[in-house]
């Protein structure tokens, strides 16, 4: 059982760098929580504070109800998987996995049993006598997981554990980590900068930037209802498109988005939320996949432009479209045949539009 809570936690370094700013976060017991953000956003620092490898400068970090600010790492009942795996190079796989138990003075027979058990689950039994230098990246990854598993910790911490693997292996290891979480029934805190990893693994995602939390929510919340342009931009491939313009309120549940080159009619529910935004400068967000290439929609749902590039990506294709001096990228079906320079119209799924304040970048639709 481990519930972790951050109460107004700050992390300052001696050189004045403020890595984590006023963090308030509650990680539920047995939850799979992913800390997502670009490098330098404070996600690894946050993880290291949970591990006890970084001191909390200010605020309270609690495991269940006990404050652990000053509790050393080995007394926190956490296990950690590092990006580099951090395997002891001169020890065999067996001793790498056993090290934590040996340090905790577990009886030899118990160590033997637990190491073999973990190795069997991870299918690395045949590697127990080898050294890390003799293993492939994927095998090292498994040993690192084994080292964490064998301790049966209350909290499992992972710092970008898949980023050193090749793409195919990353996807299969992702599935295994998800299974591991289900099997172990413990709290997982996972750091990554990879949106796909975050979306597939997480019960909840915490998006961070410059030491501050941008949004906390399920994969759905984060992707479908981004709180600001940063979150919206960070997830999605190709990234979300933005068009700057104005809101024109035409009635209680009627509003349009106005841009010199396009006018889009907003659905009633959205219009209601924007009823007080008459004349407001906004940034409209259209996700790459939220258009229909047939372009047979009603007026007020269409966006016109010129084809700039067509990039097949196997399952579908990315379409670059010149619009109002900028380039927008959309994801369209494989069957679509367009040439560069051709004028096209795409139907926008207006129910899935995102509206952000042009200055602050905050969503005007969702909190």
């Amino acid at each position, binding site marked *: 059982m481990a519930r972790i809570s951050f109460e107004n936690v700050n992390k300052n370094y001696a050189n004045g760098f403020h890595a984590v700013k006023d963090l308030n976060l509650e990680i539920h017991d047995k939850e799979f929580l992913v800390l997502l953000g670009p490098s330098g956003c404070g996600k690894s620092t946050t993880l290291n504070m949970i591990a006890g490898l970084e001191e909390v400068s200010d605020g309270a970090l609690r495991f269940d109800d006990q404050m652990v600010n000053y509790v050393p790492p080995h007394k926190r009942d956490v296990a950690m998987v*590092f990006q580099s795996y951090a395997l*002891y190079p001169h020890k065999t796989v067996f001793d790498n996995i056993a090290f*934590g138990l040996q340090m905790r003075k577990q009886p030899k027979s118990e160590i033997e049993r637990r190491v073999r058990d973990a190795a069997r689950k991870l299918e690395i039994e045949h590697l127990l006598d080898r050294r890390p230098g003799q293993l492939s990246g994927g095998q090292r990854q498994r040993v690192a997981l084994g080292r964490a598993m064998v301790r049966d910790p209350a909290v499992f911490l992972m710092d970008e554990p898949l980023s050193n693997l090749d793409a195919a292996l990353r996807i299969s290891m992702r599935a295994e980590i998800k299974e591991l979480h289900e099997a172990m029934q413990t709290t997982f805190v996972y750091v990554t900068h990879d949106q796909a990893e975050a979306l597939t693994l997480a019960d909840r995602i915490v998006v961070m930037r410059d030491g501050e939390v941008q949004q906390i929510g399920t994969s759905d919340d984060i992707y479908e209802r981004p709180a600001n342009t940063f979150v919206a931009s960070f997830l999605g491939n190709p990234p979300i498109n933005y068009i700057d313009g104005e809101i024109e309120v035409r009635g209680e549940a009627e509003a349009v988005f106005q841009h010199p080159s396009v006018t889009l009619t907003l659905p009633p529910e959205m219009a209601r939320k924007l009823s007080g935004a008459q004349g407001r400068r906004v940034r409209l967000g259209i996700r790459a996949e939220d258009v229909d290439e047939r372009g047979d929609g009603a007026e007020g749902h269409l966006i016109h432009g010129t084809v700039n590039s067509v990039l097949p990506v196997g399952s579908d294709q990315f379409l670059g479209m010149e619009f109002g001096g900028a380039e927008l990228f959309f994801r369209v079906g494989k069957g679509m045949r367009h040439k560069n320079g051709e004028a096209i119209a795409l139907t926008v799924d207006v129910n899935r539009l995102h509206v952000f304040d042009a200055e602050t970048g905050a969503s005007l639709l969702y909190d």
Partner: protein
Amino acid sequence: MANTAIHKATRRSLLDRYGYEERSAVLFLAPVMLVLMSVAVFPILYSFYLSFFRMKLTRPNNQPFIWFENYSDLLTNELFWVSVSRTVVFTLISVSAIAVIALLVALLLNQEFKGRRVLSTIILIPWAIPYVANALMWKWIYDSGYGALNGALYQLDFIDKYMVWLGDQDKTLPLIANAFVWKEVPLAAILLLVSLKAIPADLYQAARVDGATVWQRFIHITLPAMKPGFMLVMIYETMMAIRHFDLFFILTEGGPGDASHVLSWHIYVETFRNLSFGSGAAMSYLLALATFALSYFFIRTLGRRI
């Protein structure tokens, strides 16, 4: 006629076996190879050849070939065995002191603290001093009349009269070793520091999460990671200590008595004072063999688990 044709064909194929680049390489390397052959390889082989003669410059007309007699004579030469034992003692004291002190210095320099860079530079100074200059400096420090060691110990009340440090048979070897260690520690420390710096920080973090104490982290991570560095230091310093000559020549000339009569000094005396080039050459070869054997031993024992 037919023979010549075959001969030509063979010659061409031999030349063809090496491409243009290889042939140019041989051509460019030839001058330096010639120089090396004449100043290094030839003298080494020639001295080996000499070791089979009774060659004494005081008797230039009587230099018979005596097979291995120079070598077998050594087995019964008491002074030779004294010199071997002195060399072993000197090497043991020096190398173990260098290993321990260099490790401590490397661990210190691996810490982040103010003035670390300045201290690193200062610590390197002894390394930059030539061996002879180092020996002369220590001759002054150990001097019985005006030496700094006597001065310091006297003023601190550790001694009540000036001592003839290098005249004391029990203290000579440790004192010479001390001067040797002072000169050798910087290089050894830098070599060890390189191994230390190469240890990834997350190994220590992983060990902290695993519950290892500071001492356990040192034993399980730091020491094993430093093995290659240690091996290098042990081999290099052992070779330096076994063959060291300058300090013995300048500080004690093998004395008092035979207290610092090490092998390198013995070879010098035999060769250049007694002018026995044959037996001097034989001993030099034994010293070289011993050095090789020790290096091999270190590589086998320390290198096995790297």
